[in-house]
């Protein structure tokens, strides 16, 4: 399975499929444009990497996806199931409604009875199929001794059916089959919207995970073999190429290289590791190939142990009750008591069981949270659709509501506010000769500082110097020959210069005995300034936490105009800091990417992580930022606040309808016609109000 983020037209489909079909060993290939994926059925010896290069030759960006990490068939089946029930409920309610219109417009006697009987024949099987999700939820809530929205819903549906049947039996005037069916239809529509929005978010989140296919190179007797990470065992020898992430904890038995620990510690500068030094899973090897002897694999690695800690912290957050649940807690008992009172009142006053039961059913149907059931999903669907368009994925159902409450934003520095990639500052002070030599040397290395130099030179269209015999000395730098003169680029202490302060530096030796220092800084991510200004404008405090050294953090915070910052924070310290804010009664939005942030992400009231973040960090956060730009965070807060306001408004509208209609129902004036009108108008108003979230801006 391949992910193809760039395809967009029918010509792309045709070219991708033609290219894949032409490749030997492929049985069939099908592109899904909606999901931007290609599903490939191939012989086992065809490697995904080959196909990626085939497609890149055609000009398409392609990534391998791990099908095991995608379980969207399950979520898609759930939404398909809801859609099927929705279709049945829709069909049945239309037909019954037509028959009811005939009754309301004056059908009498035998005709009315006939229509009621036909309605019953349609409604009973239709409801017993379509309303199953409500019955099931209500039953499990009741068994746990709780009330949720589904209890009054189920009760109203069942009671409406029972009284209608009874009325029909006695050839009475009023039957509520249409009401019961329309109720089911509207509520299912709400459920389906909800399920669809959530499955879209989940499948995008799973795709991010699936992009990191866990493969490793195991050293066998006849050289390295590619195996799945799950197959690695203790004491296996694992080869890590430059640029690859360590799959296991281990000890270096061969090679020397620099290690990027940014994901684990937030430290920008790489560390040098030699034979005998330990490596943890998740660290990225930068310069030279390393061979590890595995000391911990799979669930035992330090990476997994930290991820497990996160799960513990997360359970604290699940105690949050959503607005809908809070409304249901107030609403459900009120409705039951009201309808029971109406029943008792009428029974005492008139002594007529049949009339009283009718009234009770009418009260339940009128008050039934049809609008309430639509209020939340319609708003969250509209809001998350809008945020998805801006590149923000909402993973958790209540995340929007929690985001709206946020009053303090805590940012991590490395990889979140910064790109995690260094940028050279004093490039302009170099001579052209120095620039071209630096470029020539830097091209031969995968070290982040070298990449920064090469990237900068490329934007200036600088030609690389014609250096020969390039040799990278892992942990020190690169050296080469230029006109039989040795030139070197690397660590300042290797070249023999002392940097003036502890900023990030590299040195360039032109062979003329006067080495120059190149200074770097960690560039802020695109939109960081705008996001912070936007958050401030909405009255939110911004705090910066970093595992990096104090001077680096201080200058960075000043650049972004952040007043409160804390440097050299260990992962625990970050989590404690967030917990302290929480205990002060603040609602914290944590934005972070690294493993050092995961505990803090899980402790915070609501959390966001960028798509480039480590899997564990993404799993711990409620929302994922898909693009490189940070700006959507400020928008997200605005949209979330607007959405929550809409949800409250919807509740108010629904309550207003109830205040008008309930007295009618209790007084026994609510005919099935009035019930149907009240229900439909309130549902439509609520949906229209929800759509306003999508409309503006």
């Amino acid at each position, binding site marked *: 399975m391949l992910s193809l983020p760039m395809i967009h*037209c*029918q*010509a792309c*489909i*045709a070219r991708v*499929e033609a290219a894949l079909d032409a490749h030997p060993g492929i049985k*069939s290939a*099908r*592109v*899904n*444009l*909606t*999901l931007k994926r290609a599903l490939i059925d191939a012989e086992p010896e065809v490697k995904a990497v080959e196909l990626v290069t085939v497609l890149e030759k055609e000009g398409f960006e392609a990534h391998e996806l791990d099908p095991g990490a995608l379980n969207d068939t399950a979520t*898609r089946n759930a939404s*398909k199931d809801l*859609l*099927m029930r929705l*279709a*049945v409920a829709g*069909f049945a309610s*239309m*037909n019954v409604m*037509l028959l009811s219109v005939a009754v309301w417009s004056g059908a009498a006697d035998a*005709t009315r009875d*006939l229509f009621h009987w*036909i309605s019953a024949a*349609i409604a009973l099987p239709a409801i017993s199929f379509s309303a199953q999700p409500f019955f099931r939820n209500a039953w499990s809530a009741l068994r746990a001794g709780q009330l949720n929205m589904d209890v009054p819903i189920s009760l109203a549906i069942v009671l409406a059916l029972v009284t209608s049947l009874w009325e029909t039996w006695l050839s009475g005037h009023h039957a509520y089959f249409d009401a019961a069916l329309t109720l089911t239809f509207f509520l299912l529509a709400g459920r389906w919207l909800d399920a669809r929005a959530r499955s879209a978010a989940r499948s995008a989140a799973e795709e991010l995970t699936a992009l990191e296919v866990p493969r490793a190179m195991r050293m066998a007797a006849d050289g390295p073999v590619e195996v799945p990470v799950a197959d690695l065992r203790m004491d296996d020898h694992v080869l890590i190429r430059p640029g690859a992430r360590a799959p296991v904890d281990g000890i270096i038995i061969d090679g020397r290289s620099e290690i990027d620990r940014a994901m684990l510690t937030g430290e920008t500068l790489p560390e040098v590791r030699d034979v005998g030094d330990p490596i943890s899973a998740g660290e990225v090897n930068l310069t030279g190939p390393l061979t590890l002897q595995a000391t911990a694999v799979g669930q035992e690695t330090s990476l997994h142990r930290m991820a497990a800690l996160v799960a513990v912290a997360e359970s604290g957050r699940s105690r949050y009750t959503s607005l809908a649940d809070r409304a249901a807690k107030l609403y459900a008992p009120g409705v039951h008591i009201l309808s029971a009172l109406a029943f008792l009142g009428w029974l005492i006053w008139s002594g007529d069981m049949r009339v009283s039961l009718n009234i009770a059913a009418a009260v339940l149907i009128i008050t039934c949270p049809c609008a309430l059931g639509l209020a939340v999903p319609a708003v969250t669907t509209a809001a998350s659709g809008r945020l998805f368009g801006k590149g923000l994925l909402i993973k958790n159902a209540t995340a929007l509501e929690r985001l709206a409450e946020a009053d303090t934003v805590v940012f991590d520095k490395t990889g979140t506010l910064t790109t995690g990639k260094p940028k050279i500052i004093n490039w302009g002070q170099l001579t052209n000769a120095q620039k071209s030599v630096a470029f020539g040397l830097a091209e031969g290395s995968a070290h982040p500082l070298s990449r920064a130099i090469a990237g900068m030179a490329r934007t200036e269209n600088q030609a690389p110097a014609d250096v020969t015999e390039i040799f990278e000395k892992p942990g020190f730098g690169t050296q080469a020959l230029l006109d039989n003169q040795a030139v070197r680029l690397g660590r300042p202490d290797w070249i023999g210069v002392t940097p003036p302060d502890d900023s990030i530096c590299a040195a360039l030796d032109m062979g003329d005995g006067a080495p120059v220092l190149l200074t770097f800084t960690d560039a802020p991510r695109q939109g960081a300034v705008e996001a912070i200004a936007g958050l401030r404008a909405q009255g939110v405090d911004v705090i910066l936490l970093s595992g990096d050294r104090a001077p680096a953090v201080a200058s960075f915070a000043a650049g972004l105009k952040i007043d409160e910052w804390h440097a050299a924070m260990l992962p625990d310290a970050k989590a404690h800091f967030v917990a302290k804010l929480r205990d002060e009664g603040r609602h914290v939005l944590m934005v972070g990417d690294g493993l050092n942030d995961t505990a803090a992400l899980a402790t915070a009231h609501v959390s966001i992580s960028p798509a480039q973040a480590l899997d564990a960090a993404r799993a711990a956060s409620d929302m994922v930022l898909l693009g490189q730009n940070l700006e959507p965070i400020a928008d997200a807060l605005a949209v979330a606040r607007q959405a929550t306001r809409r949800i409250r408004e919807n509740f108010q509208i629904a309550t207003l309808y109830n205040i008008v209609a309930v007295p009618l129902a209790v007084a026994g004036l609510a005919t099935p016609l009035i019930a149907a009108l009240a229900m439909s108008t309130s549902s439509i108003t609520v949906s229209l109000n929800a759509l306003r979230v999508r409309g503006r801006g």
Partner: protein
Amino acid sequence: MNVLAYLIPISLILGGLGLVGFLYTLKSRQYDDPEGDSRRILSDKWDDHPKE
């Protein structure tokens, strides 16, 4: 009013046909890639043999 004996079953059967048709399209996974399908129709490559 005897005409009802024909009309009601007929209307129910017609509506039911629509419902069955919809359920069939749902079961045969015709909503898996709406965007791709709407594009494929523009190319004559799949006119004779729809892509599986």
